[in-house]
């Protein structure tokens, strides 16, 4: 009865074939990558299938990999099958120039704010989202701050004048 990672992988490969790649199990958590246009189809299948039953959305987030050509942004979904108590991680890569990914709001109500947050920080455009506006940052912001092109201040910089901060001494 209990579902295993092998069984999930077998079931998904039967259904989707080449669409899914990159199967691995870091720390026992089945991780797979779907082609960009298939994220919703895969999630719908995982939701509907009577054997897989991934009906709880734990988390949506994104990761920015500036060095990967044409797949700079990864959207990461963590799904949970509460009956069999097994988790799954689904990734979708999308180019930063056109970061369009289908929304999961029709499957999970909770996806609404999680996708807004992901849009807010990474600029992922969730196609079909009912209200894709910023959620944590100010509405006037024109950039997506969690992308890697916005580094935090370098603590080793030497052009900073400590006198301005009341600590005296200049470099």
């Amino acid at each position, binding site marked *: 009865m209990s579902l295993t990672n092998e069984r999930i992988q077998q079931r998904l490969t039967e259904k989707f074939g080449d669409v899914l790649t990159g199967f691995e199990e870091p720390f026992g958590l089945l991780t797979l990558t779907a082609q960009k246009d298939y994220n919703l189809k895969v999630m719908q299948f995982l939701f509907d299938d009577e054997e897989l039953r991934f009906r709880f959305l*734990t988390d949506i987030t994104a990761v920015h990999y500036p060095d990967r050509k044409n797949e700079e942004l990864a959207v990461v979904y*963590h799904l949970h099958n509460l009956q069999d108590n097994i988790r799954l991680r689904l990734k979708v890569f999308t180019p930063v120039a056109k970061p369009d990914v289908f929304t999961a709001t029709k499957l999970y109500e909770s996806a*609404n704010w999680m996708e807004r947050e992901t849009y807010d920080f990474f600029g992922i455009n969730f196609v079909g989202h009912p209200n894709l506006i*910023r959620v*944590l940052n*100010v509405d006037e912001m024109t950039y997506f701050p969690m992308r890697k092109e*916005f580094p935090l201040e370098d603590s080793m910089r030497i052009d900073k004048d400590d006198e301005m901060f009341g600590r005296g001494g200049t470099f």
Partner: protein
Amino acid sequence: MLDQKQHIKLPEGSLEKDTTTLNLGPTHPATHGVFQNILEIDGERIVSAVSTVGYIHRAFEKIAERRPYYQITPLTDRLNYCSAPINNMGWLLTVEKLLGIETPKRVDYLRVIIMELARIADHLICSSVMGVDTGALTGFVYVMTYRELIYEIYEEICGSRLTTNIGRIGGFERNFTPAAFAKIERFLAEYPAVLKEFETLLTRNRIFMERTQGVGGISAERALSYGFTGPNLRAAGVDYDVRVANPYCSYQDFDFSIPVGTTGDSYDRFQVRNAEMWESISIIRQAMDKLKSLPDDVYHADIPAYYLPAKQDVYTKMEALIYHFKIVMGEADILPGEVYNAVEGANGELGFYLISDGGRSPYRLHFRRPCFIYYQAYAELVKGGMLSDAIVCMSSLNLIAGELDA
């Protein structure tokens, strides 16, 4: 005589709205934190609500991308600041999972004691504030004394009270003092009577029941769809608890039950939290018993590369000095990897999604903050209810502004 109907109804073609727009928050005293809701109300009934969040967003995920691992623990304090130790432990357990560190049993049990104390501190605030919002201040004052005692226990262990930064990678900074154990014993001896008295004040209190029963109820199906976890989900009747589903920190050694509700309304949430406090007391008792059979000088794992050596050794031994320097400068070797680790926070599943590229700080760190996810349901929960019910519903959800906005 005035025709009442005509008086209240707007004339045909009027530009005025039938409803009133009301800003509830962000600095309303009854919202317990920075929460803003723009309500459309018809008389005193809520027609719709729009929640605005982000007032205290501090970009922790971004800051974490530049900090060495041990400097991220203080950031996690500021998520759910009512139960900071659980956040600390959640983060440390994530790092330990990534690095493959096995902690000794005694460390696990000490951590369980701290986490369960934090859970009690969090739940007693939430439950007693529900009383305050319905007009009963007494219970709040009774249990606050014991939150103070819990904070004193934190103070004995780590030196601080609210933002604790308790624990280090592999264990604790120092051993629990005899005074800390004495205070825990005192808490275990005195708190049950107080909790009992608190429950007597509210559980069968007619006014309290009328104010909370049927307020902000949600079905199990909707709760799952909205991503509810923790006591709020269990109040709707789903027995999902990370401590049991994916035991961490030796929770499998403890015998406890998961209280569940049926209707998912504010009263059930209150009941579930109170029942969980009893379970937590029992877990702490079991942990104290288990500690007796273990050597009492073990409080960290033997991992010199990640755990700071004793100061005496740093001055006298070369290896200790090297490790000390490497750890403090954030140069301890971190393996590349990708890990998701969840703990049962006081208000739901608190998850840490960590991607390491082998560098000194995380490549990406994402917090799964339970109340950010379930707060979306608020608009649906309060719709059609009275304005005063919206306040009760908000306090029963146990929303913590720091966690909501990260």
